[in-house]
């Protein structure tokens, strides 16, 4: 296929703005699949569908005849969550154009905006599309003016569609051909951008690439620019509904290569593939090693499952470049792993998949960020587990990760947002009015402050209207301290947390109260203390259990009584014991439930 007949594009949209439905319409229109054949075919992981989001990018190749010419349209799907914004940026970088898809009843959201900016940075042709015009709540005019304001384009070029009803889809498809430029090659040496790589247990890593220059075919010796490692291509192909092997991939093509790569971390997203015999001197720009932002201790609920957990993590890593882990031990939790994640969603998905796909019940500790600890002796230490924080006497100062955050919100809620930002130690950098309906506020927030319930709070103070996006800014010195939790006078290492000085008391108080609700009553009273060094700053007491008796027990009740006791016993089995106190798994996440106001 002549590269002039290829169009590579993606769809930038917020969750639920109709991206999958639009993709379905395209697939039907191009007869890639027949109508109703498969619902939302692009999302093939259960978990993604349940959460209504796409985590992994699935490209798809469509063929379409327009004005007597055959075109190849490659739709590169983009993950839909800020945790995966780097993957999104690589998918965007693989395209020449993007559909900016906006729900007419919702307007533009922060994440859409930041992806739009990425697309503009990469000089993508942007085709603005207003979706769901069939809805009663659709505010087409308002959405239109928002888009014009954001992009500075005349209104005539905005497409109005209803993906659900199939309205104006064909016109949009033709616009992709007309408006988006075909791929161009700028050099002779082969360069292909990896925008995804997926582990397959039979075939090894399937590397998703966009060829920018040159070509790749079976038998070629390739080299990954970031590592300099060489592999030999075993197979190349395109993405139909299924993988379709083909002779070679040429400039402009989107497809896959299989080259005996065993782990996804050897074929990293964003890396450039070139030919070993004539390698490029200039890799494609933008490569970054994935950087975990959130850390959590992961322990098997049943200690006997340690090896199973270790095996599961190893398998996981085959398919997830961003997951890092190393063994860790805790006095109360035993043997487990410290795991690093891109963000909270990544962590949640990981935990769910462990339970669902590997049948492993786990205890996880409260997520932490990575602190830079400067010691008095001039050395610097990275700490991602609060219990590992050195003695305060050794610490010169501590730095914490700061995020650049963009909040889009109707002007009415600016006051609420400012209050929330103040509570979360946010520093306002900029406030920009997009139009009369929306302002964009730029903040710097400590990651620690936006990790847990920030998004929910943001939604609640803006009646659901605010949207939010963030990226890593850098480290900044901050007055932080570690708080230890003592249950029945014994320190529970896995419950220590790091907090800003000014909030230490509030958090400590709230956690001791929460733990009082979570930890069951025992035969003796159990003090719960939060200590700053040796000084107890908050405490609560779980009163002793005074009644737990089956008063009446006769012939008919024996099975019933036994079941009751079995339930109590089972409850205990799911707990960890310290200082003769049984601590349920959710207690280790109590810090998440702290009232941060």
């Amino acid at each position, binding site marked *: 296929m002549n590269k002039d007949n290829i169009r590579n594009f993606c769809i930038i949209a917020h969750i639920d703005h109709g991206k999958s439905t639009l993709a379905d319409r395209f697939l039907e229109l191009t007869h890639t699949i027949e109508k109703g054949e498969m619902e939302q075919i692009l999302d093939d992981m259960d978990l993604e569908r349940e959460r209504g989001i796409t985590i992994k990018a699935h490209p798809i190749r469509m063929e379409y005849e327009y004005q007597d010419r055959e075109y190849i349209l490659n739709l590169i799907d983009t993950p839909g969550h800020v945790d995966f914004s780097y993957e999104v940026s690589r998918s965007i970088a693989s395209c020449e154009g993007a559909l900016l898809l906006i729900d007419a009843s919702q307007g533009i959201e922060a994440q859409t905006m930041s992806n739009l900016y990425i697309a503009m940075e990469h000089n993508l042709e942007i085709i603005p599309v207003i979706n769901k015009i069939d809805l009663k709540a659709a505010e087409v005019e308002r959405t239109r003016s928002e888009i014009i304001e954001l992009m500075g384009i005349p209104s005539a070029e905005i497409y109005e569609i209803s993906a659900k009803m199939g309205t104006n889809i064909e016109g949009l498809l033709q616009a992709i051909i007309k408006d988006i430029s075909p791929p161009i090659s700028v050099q002779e040496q082969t360069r292909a951008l990896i925008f995804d790589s997926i582990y397959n247990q039979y075939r090894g890593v399937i590397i998703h690439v966009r060829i920018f220059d040159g070509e790749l075919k079976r038998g070629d010796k390739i080299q990954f620019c970031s590592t300099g490692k060489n592999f030999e291509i075993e197979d190349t192909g395109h993405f139909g509904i299924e993988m379709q092997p083909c002779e070679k991939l040429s400039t402009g093509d989107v497809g896959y290569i299989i080259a005996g790569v065993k782990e996804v971390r050897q074929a990293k997203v964003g890396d450039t593939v070139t030919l070993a015999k004539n390698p490029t001197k200039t890799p494609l720009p933008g490569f970054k090693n994935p950087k975990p932002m959130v850390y959590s201790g992961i322990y098997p609920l049943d200690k006997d499952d340690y090896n199973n957990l270790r095996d599961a993590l190893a398998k996981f890593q085959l398919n997830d470049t961003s997951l890092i882990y190393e063994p860790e031990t805790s006095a109360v939790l035993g043997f487990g792993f410290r795991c690093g994640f891109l963000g909270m969603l990544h962590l949640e998905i990981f935990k769910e998949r462990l339970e669902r796909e590997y049948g492993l019940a786990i205890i996880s500790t409260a997520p932490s960020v990575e602190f830079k600890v400067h010691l008095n002796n001039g050395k610097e230490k990275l700490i991602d587990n609060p219990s590992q924080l050195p003695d305060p006497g050794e610490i010169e100062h501590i730095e914490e990760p700061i995020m650049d955050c963009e909040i889009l919100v109707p002007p009415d809620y600016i006051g609420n947002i400012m209050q929330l930002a103040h509570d979360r130690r946010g520093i306002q950098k900029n406030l920009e009015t997009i139009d009369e309906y929306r302002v964009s506020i730029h903040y710097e927030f400590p990651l620690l402050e936006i990790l847990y319930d920030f998004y929910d709070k943001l939604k609640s103070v803006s009646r659901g209207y605010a949207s939010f996006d963030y990226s890593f800014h850098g480290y900044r010195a901050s007055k932080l301290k570690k708080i230890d939790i003592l249950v029945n006078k014994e320190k529970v290492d896995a419950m220590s947390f790091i907090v800003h000085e000014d909030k230490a008391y509030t958090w400590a108080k709230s956690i001791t109260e929460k733990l009082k609700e979570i930890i069951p009553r025992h035969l003796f009273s159990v003090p719960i203390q939060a200590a700053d060094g040796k000084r107890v700053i908050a405490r609560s007491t779980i009163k002793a259990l005074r*009644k737990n008796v089956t008063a009446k027990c006769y*012939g008919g009740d*024996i099975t019933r009584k036994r079941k009751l006791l*079995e339930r109590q016993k089972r409850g205990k089995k799911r707990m960890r014991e310290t200082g003769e106190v049984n601590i349920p798994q959710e207690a280790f996440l109590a810090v998440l439930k702290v009232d941060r106001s």
Partner: protein
Amino acid sequence: MQKKLALYLHFPFCTKKCNYCNFYSIPYDADLVHKYCSGLRQEIINFPYKNDYKVITIYLGGGSPSLIPFHELVSTINLIREKFYLDKEIEFTLEANPIHVSESKAENWRITGVNRISMGAQSFNDGELSKLGRLHSSTEIGIAANKIKEICCNNISLDLMYGIPGQTMKSWLNSLQKAIKLSPKHISSYCLKLEKETFLAENKAKYNFPDEELERKMYYKMISELQKKDYEQYEISNFGKKSYYSRHNTHIWEGGEYVGLGAAAHSFYKMQRIRNKSDIKSYLNKLKETNNGIDKKRKISTQEFMVDKIMLGLRLNKGISLPKFHAEFGIDLLDKFGEQINKFLKNNYLTIEDERLKFTSKALFISNSILSEFI
């Protein structure tokens, strides 16, 4: 040698359901009662019994067995006498509601062979009785008890309840005193438990229930008050004058075999736990089809039986005999559960006296916390 068997007969009819009761029961209906009693007799006739067991107790429970018409009672008991080998010293208990007790009934029971009456007094405070949905007054309990003593038998047990809405320590002590004054041979006393789908549970917001701490005080106060009057505590909730412990229930708590006949009755027979169909209709249908009322039957392992035996045996104040346990299971209880037992011995929740493992007094009201570690 014949093994000992306890026999339980269930009569699921009531004048009115009490506000705390979640047992299967239905309003009295003469026609249905006849059908039910015929069914019960059919079950008795067809019960697989060879003379390998000696029935040591009969217990007529409910529901309200004090409602059973005399002719039905006599013909049913006669069948039992024909079919089973009955111990000469048999204990034959009938559960009675004070409102059903009349001179003629007491006489009928005596003639039938009933030698122990377990009467649901529950409280001697009329306000509390009405909250429980009982149909009798406190005075009627006394009248009924005297009639029974005069005509039927001297061996009366009274059921009492604490944890009733609005109950105070004072009213509880008063109920205890009044019960003792009637000089029953035996007292069973239960903490009111809110069972699902009962009137009290569904209306619990309207009532003021004593808190756990008060219930606990009521419990321990009761033990000391009853002890003063020579009612020996022999089980978590049961007290008796010397040689008047409930033999039927003691047999069950010791892990003995029992056969329950009638709707919703349970059995433990030849290492099987058996449950009969619980509602009358399906019970009678099942009988029509198979000549038994069985809903579910499950064989239990020696291991499970052993744990049941601990669970039940520790309810008894005398506890579990370590040598006997060893003789029966070939396992040393202190080895098998060494970790748990040592912890509880150390914390003074368990004690060993005369080679018997038993609860200490403070363990009784939190006994499930201890028992669950043996499961």
